Structure formats: structure tokens, C-alpha cells
């Protein structure tokens, strides 16, 4: 029996029949829309006004559905626009990591040999330190800023993505069409980018979506730890770290609602990533 090749149509069939993909896509869409159009939807100014302080830490009510925070700002308004920061930072970091990682993976996978060995070792060294700690280290050294977060996550993703792309390139290199191209005296550049690259795009797409989920996870952890993000911008992780000390006083709303927002966003994105991975890997 011949091995069926998956076409775009078949992939779409797999995705279409996956209920979890659709649930994930719906959740993700809600947060993306609120990140873009959030300002039009919020009942109050998410950044708050000076008078808000008089109204601090109020429990949920008809006026403030999710209550108010320690500065009296409306928690609901801050939750609605809170996705913006994490989504832009994660997306930018993942895009950087994917571009650099793909380039590196293609080159290392194709040339192999010593370059491959050296980069493999550096990669292992990188991977010995958890991403959150690498990011903390770099941010402590460089000073906290949003761009630093993007850069650190992007750079740590680079070897991770390179590793996956490299494996895919190695598999492609074994195929005869590469030999055929060599027999036509094609340049290495042509073989790598015109012959091999189109055949590893599926792997890159899957890797991108999985990494995006992980970037969100890391950005949130960093913001919870108070690293690298502007304190004035509404941010779920920061909101939790600023308010969890109040938990013992039974003031749960400034913490619980951002926590639920985080949970729904990461689950949503990862259900989408999982659906895409299954469609592309089968």
C-alpha cells in the first residue's frame, strides 16, 4: 500500500473535525479582538483616574463587575485590555525566534559536520538553564524593558527552533531530489532555500504555534515576577503579583479574574496549536 501524502485539503479536514481546535480558536479570537479593540469595550479607563483611589479594593458590584484593584481601577477594564501586552510581546519574540531559528536550522542541517557539532553543544548549554532564569539573568544584566524580553525569548527560542528545523532538513537531505539538484550543480543556497525549505515549512508552522504558547507562558511568568514590562500598562501577570498579598484578607477579585483570563488564553492558544500540529504531522 502506498503512503498517502497529506494535501492542504486533507489537513483542513483534520482541523475541521477537531472540536477542541474550534474551542481554542474561539477563545483566542476573543482575546485577540479585545487586545485590538479593547479600548472601545472597556466600561472605564483601564489606566484609572486620580479619583479612583477613593474607591480601592471594592468587591464586584453592578458598577464594577469584577471589582476594583488597589488603586481603585476597574478590574474588568484592565482584564479586557490586558491581553494586548502579552500577545504583542509573545508574538514578536516568537517571530524573531522562528526566523533566526529557521535560518540557523537550515544551515546547520545542510552543512552538518563540525558546525553542527559546535552549535549542538552550545544549544545543549543553553538548554541547561530554564528559559525563565535565562530571561531573568539577561534582564538583570541589561535592565528591564519590553524589548529586552522580546529579544531574550526570541534568542532562546532560536536554538530550540533550529534543533527542530535541523532534524527536518537532515531527513530531507537523505532524499534523492537533493542529490539530483547537486548533479545539476545547483548552488548550496539554491538547494537549501528553493529545494529544501519549501519541504520543511510544515515543521516550521507547527513549531511556531507551539513556541507561541510557550512564549506566552514565559512572558506571563516574567511579568508575574515583575520583570521587564512597563508597570503602567495593564498586564495580567503583574496584576496578580501586585495583589496576591491581599488574598489573606479575602480580597480575591483583583487576582482571580486576571488568573482566569490567563488560563483561558493559554489553553485557547494551545488548543489551536495542538490542532494545527495534529493536522500537519499526520
Amino acid at each position, binding site marked *: *500500500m*502506498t503512503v498517502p*501524502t497529506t*494535501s492542504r485539503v486533507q489537513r483542513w*479536514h483534520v482541523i475541521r*473535525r477537531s472540536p477542541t481546535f474550534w474551542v481554542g480558536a474561539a477563545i483566542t479570537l476573543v482575546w485577540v479582538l479585545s487586545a485590538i479593540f479593547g479600548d472601545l469595550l472597556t466600561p472605564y479607563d483601564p489606566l484609572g483616574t486620580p479619583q479612583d483611589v477613593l474607591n480601592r479594593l471594592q468587591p464586584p458590584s453592578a458598577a464594577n463587575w469584577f471589582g476594583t484593584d488597589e488603586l481603585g481601577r476597574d478590574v474588568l477594564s484592565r482584564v479586557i485590555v490586558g491581553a494586548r501586552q502579552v500577545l504583542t510581546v509573545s508574538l514578536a519574540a516568537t517571530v524573531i525566534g522562528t526566523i533566526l531559528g529557521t535560518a540557523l536550522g537550515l544551515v546547520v542541517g545542510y552543512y552538518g559536520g563540525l558546525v553542527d557539532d559546535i552549535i549542538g553543544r552550545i544549544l545543549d548549554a543553553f538548554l541547561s538553564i530554564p528559559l525563565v532564569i535565562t530571561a531573568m539573568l539577561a534582564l538583570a544584566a541589561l535592565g528591564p524593558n519590553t524589548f529586552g524580553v522580546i529579544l531574550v525569548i526570541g534568542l532562546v527560542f532560536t536554538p530550540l527552533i533550529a534543533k527542530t528545523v535541523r532534524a527536518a532538513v537532515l531527513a530531507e537531505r537523505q*532524499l*534523492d*531530489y537533493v*542529490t*539530483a*539538484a*547537486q*548533479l*545539476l*550543480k*545547483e548552488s548550496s543556497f539554491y538547494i537549501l532555500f528553493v*529545494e529544501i525549505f*519549501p*519541504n520543511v515549512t510544515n515543521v516550521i508552522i507547527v513549531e511556531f504555534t507551539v513556541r507561541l504558547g510557550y512564549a506566552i507562558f514565559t512572558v506571563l511568568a516574567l511579568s508575574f515576577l515583575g520583570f521587564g514590562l512597563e508597570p503602567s500598562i495593564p498586564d495580567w501577570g503583574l496584576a496578580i503579583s501586585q495583589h496576591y498579598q491581599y488574598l489573606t484578607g479575602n480580597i480575591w477579585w483583583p487576582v482571580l479574574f486576571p488568573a482566569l483570563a490567563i488560563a483561558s488564553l493559554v489553553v485557547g492558544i494551545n488548543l489551536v496549536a495542538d490542532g494545527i500540529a495534529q493536522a500537519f504531522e499526520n
Partner: protein
Amino acid sequence: MSEAAPKPILEVENLGIDYKIGTEWKTAIRDVSFTIDRQETFGLVGESGCGKTTVAMAIMHYLPRNGRVSSGSIRLAGRDLVDLSPNELRDVRVNQISMVYQNPSTALNPSIRIGAQVADVFELMGVPKDERSQRVIDILAKVQIADPARVVGRYPHQLSGGMLQRVVIAMAIASEPTLLVLDEPTTGLDATVEAEVLDLVSNLRDDIGTSVLYISHSLAVIRRMCDRVGVLYAGRLMAEGAAEAVFTDPRHPYTVGLLRSLPSSEIGRDEATLDTIPGFLPPLGADIKGCVYADRCAIAEDICRDVEPDLKPLTGNRFSRCHFPDRAPDLPRAVAAEPPVRQTETEPLVEISNVSKTFIQDGHPVYALNGIDLTIHVGETVALVGESGSGKTTLAKVLLGIDAPDEGSVITLSGEELAAEVRDRGQEDVGAVQMVFQNPDSALNRRHSVRRIIGRAVRLLRGVGRKPSDERTRDLLAEVRMGMEYYNAKPRHLSGGLKQRVAIARAFAGSPALVVCDEPTSALDVSVQAAIINLLAELQAEENVAYLFISHDLNVVRYLADRVAVMYLGRLMEVGPAKRVFGGPHHPYTEALLSAAPDLQEGARIRLEGEIPSASEPPPGCMFQTRCPRKIGEICETIEPDLVETEAGYSIRCHIPVAELGRLQATRV
């Protein structure tokens, strides 16, 4: 069937099997019926995708998760196998029915020793614990494993494919089953190993008196092994009957077409083309009202397209699913028999002198090629034969400039020295030496269109712009007999044969002088193989191109090759005109290769003992002495014979004089 006939062991009746693809159930097997009598060997033969393995797995009650038996029954010794309880099923598998699989290297648990895996079978049979290890050794000895006491302590990855298949066979016959199912048990093994396994299976079958269902794509193997055969096509049994009758006097157009596609030992490429079967296998689950073969059948009439024929009994205890079985033998040829006319030249084209290639593996040298001298003339076909590991592909890669040979190796093209690596060769040399690969799926970039694949080669090898290259691409498509409808197609839209045509067109983009063909038809079905061989022959006549043709199929080699070079462990053992090499007297290694081919010669078989030695530790003396059935003594073990030209254009590397070889080989039969 006569009334006195004893009850058959296996009765398959109106079997239908569906596969769930996406959300739909598609018919894979429809209305298949056959029986196997006691001690009979029944063969199921057909091309890939016809449903052979599906039938076997249904009998084993082990269909894939998306498969189901939709109709019919399977009875073993009168007992229905389709509706067994799990315990009954286990009992049947332990005692009555066993299977041997296509790929022995994955068939055994990699983390359990051989002995323990074989012992399982005896445990299940209820053999007491203290007797089991002896029984294991006995059964391994029975499948002719040398030193079974040592093998029981081995893990699967320590044994060769041939050895593993013996172990699987040992497990299968241990319970002396009522029915033994063999699914392509020798596919992927070297011809010499295949021959041994086939001999073993025949002997064991006679010994324990089991019935056998033998599944293979190879008509030759089925013919050699089976009493009766069934020919499957698109999930239908098209013909059935005694093997002899089905193969010598076929009464179904499909069987006729298949047999005509096979190159035979009597006819060469300059005598006649091979016949082919036009068209394609219908897709799985296709809704076909009439005969499933009507689309491809030259004698089909209206009734064939409207009414599906039954499997009708004919004279001589055989059956054919055809409305016109009597017309089948007179099936018109799909292609004209007239062979293309070739120019005859003897000018040398490529001269390979003293070519060696040493790889370094884990710090040890591996001598993949050793002092090869070979000349390829303009427009001729030189076949390279030998077991896997003999260095055929390495020689091709060196010639193509993919691997650089060792210092001192010289390859010339039309008298000019060829740069060792392709990147140092000029455009003309690059276009002059091209290649057709074994696996067309791997040879074409799945993301590029046919137009792009061929067009790019044209532009690079001819140095022309886009417009003239488009023209030339169309010409090339026409030359490989492909319609313009494929011009913008991607490889996934093409069948295996069409992909191979595209690959051939690419190789011919720059008017090559030499095309290396590395097993170009071994991944293809016989009917497609015939068309590709015809195409290669035609292109050779038109373009006066030379082929270096690597193949393990000696029938194909005999049909196509002008000269044959036999390789063993990186050395040439025998080189000469095809007729001379095949006609004999041959080198003992060639003799063994020839006798291993299932249908060339009947009679006593030359057995090769042991396995091909590692090229990193070649034996002293003659390379072949460790396995040579005609070894004459110490000289073979100490001194390596030279490749000596004993007659014009014929050389042999053996201590035994040619005349003596002739005498020895004449006494066989």
C-alpha cells in the same frame, strides 16, 4: 471441485473488507472467495494496492483499526474465524495459524533476546518449562540457523535480515500450524538470501505438512512456490487456478498483460519490446459498475463496462472473472513489438581506471571500492550486479561526482579526465553524466511542479532562458510519453511510473552521454516496470546514450544489458558481454547469483553460506573465499586472484581456470 475432495483447510467466501477513510467507508476487498486444501500452497498475487495484505490480515483477524470485514466468511478447518471470542482467537493463533511478515527487521521485539521470544511459542503450546530451551534450539536448528545455542542469547539488532526471517519462520512453524500465512517474506532481502529462505519454506512445508497462503507481488516467486494461485486486482479475485495453468495458459486479460510485462530470459531488447498494461489502478472505493479492469482492457466491450462478470469456472479447474476468457490469450499488444533500432558503435565513452573509494567509519577504513577498471562505450548498456553492500551504488556515486574517489583513481569522459566532484565539472560534463534514481517519490521535490523540475534542469544544463527551456521541457515530456496535462502537476498527483518518467526527462534535459540508472524499476509494479524499460530502450536508441544500469533483477539485466559487470565487496569479479556472462562458464559468485533468481534455472541451487563480510575487514585472499562453493584450497585463502582477460572483452577474477569452471558447472542440472 470433485465430490470426493476432502474438506478444505481454509475457506474464504464472498469476503468483503472496507476501510474508513475520513468519514466514509470505502470498499477495499469485494467478493473474494477461495479455498486452500490440506497441504496445499495457495498464492495470492497482484500489484501494489490490490488488497493482498488486507486479505491476509483479515484471515489473521488483525485488520488495521480503520478496517472491517463487511461481508462474507473465513473458515479455518470448518470454524468461522470472523466471530471468535478473544480466547478462542488466541487459541487459533497459538495452535492453528501462523504468519511470517514482510519486514523481518522490525518483526521481533528489540529488547528481548531471541531465545525468549521463540520460547514464548512453546510456553503458549503448553510445553513444560524445563523442555523449552531445548525445543527452542531444536526449532532454530530446523530453520538451518548455524550455532543456535549462540543465537538464542542474541538481540534482534545483532542478526541480519535473513537470520531474523529464519527466526520468525521458526516461531511460525513451531506449533506445526494448520495454516501458514506468508506475506512477502522475501521482499527486501538479497536474491541469494531470498533463494535460501524460499528453499527453507518449501522444505518445512513438506516436512510438517501444513497448508500455506503465500502472498507476493512477484509472479516468479509465486510460480515457484505455489500449487494454485489467485490473481487479485482492485480488491477482486480476477483469476484462479493451478499455478501451471494460470501462468502458462492465462485466461484473463489482466494475467496475460502481467505475464507479458515480465522480461523473460529468451528475448532481449533488440528482439522485441516488452508489452505493457495501459492506464491506472482505480482508486480505493471507486464506484465501478462493470468490470474493474474494463478501463485498461484491450478486448473490453460494452457489456464489460456495464456488467461485472462473475468468477466463472473454465476447463482445467480454473476460474476467470472475464466475459470473454477465451479471447484473453489473443489480447492485442498494448505497444508494438518492434524494438527501436540502435546505432552500433564501439567507441569508448567513459573509462574508469583504478578507482578506489575508502570511507572512514568510527576511525576504521571501509574499503567500499578497490581498484575498479571498467569501460563504458558510446550507446551501450552496462549492468552492474551484486548483492547489497557490494559497492554498486558507491561506484555510481563516484562516477557522478557525488563522492570523490581515492587518490590515483582516474575517470575519463571521451578521453578527457573528469573532475572528481560534480561542483568542479563544467556545464557540458555535468549534463553529460546524469542519473535516474530508484525511488521516484524521493527523487522529485514534492513542492515543485513537473514544469519546474524539468525546466530548471534544462536551463542549467543547456544554459538557455525561460522561453526556450519551456519548449524543450514540453519536448522532453513528449519524449517520455507524458501528456501536456501533467505540465503543471505536482508529484503527488502522479503515479509512481509517471514520477519515474519525470525523473528520466530531467536526466535527459542536457543530452546526456551516460545515464546512471540505480534500480530504476525496483520500486515499481511489473506492468509499470515494463513501460519504463521500454522507454529507456527507446531513449537509448534515439539519443545514443550509454547506461550504467544497477539492478538486482537479473531478468531485467538479461533483457536490457549489453555487458555485465559483477561486483563483490568493492571488487569486479567478472566483466563481459551479457550473453557470455549469463551463458557461462561463470564466476562462482555469478553462478550463485544466477541460481538464486527464482525462475531462471530450475534444478540444484548453489547455496551461499554465511553472509557478505564487512568491507572494513575484508577476508584475506579472494574476497569471495569465505562463501565460495567452489573453493579449491589454500590458494583461495591466501592469494587474491587478478581480474584476467581470458577472452576478448571478457575478464574474470578466479583461481579456477575458465575451462575447469565450465566443466564443474556443466555437471549441475
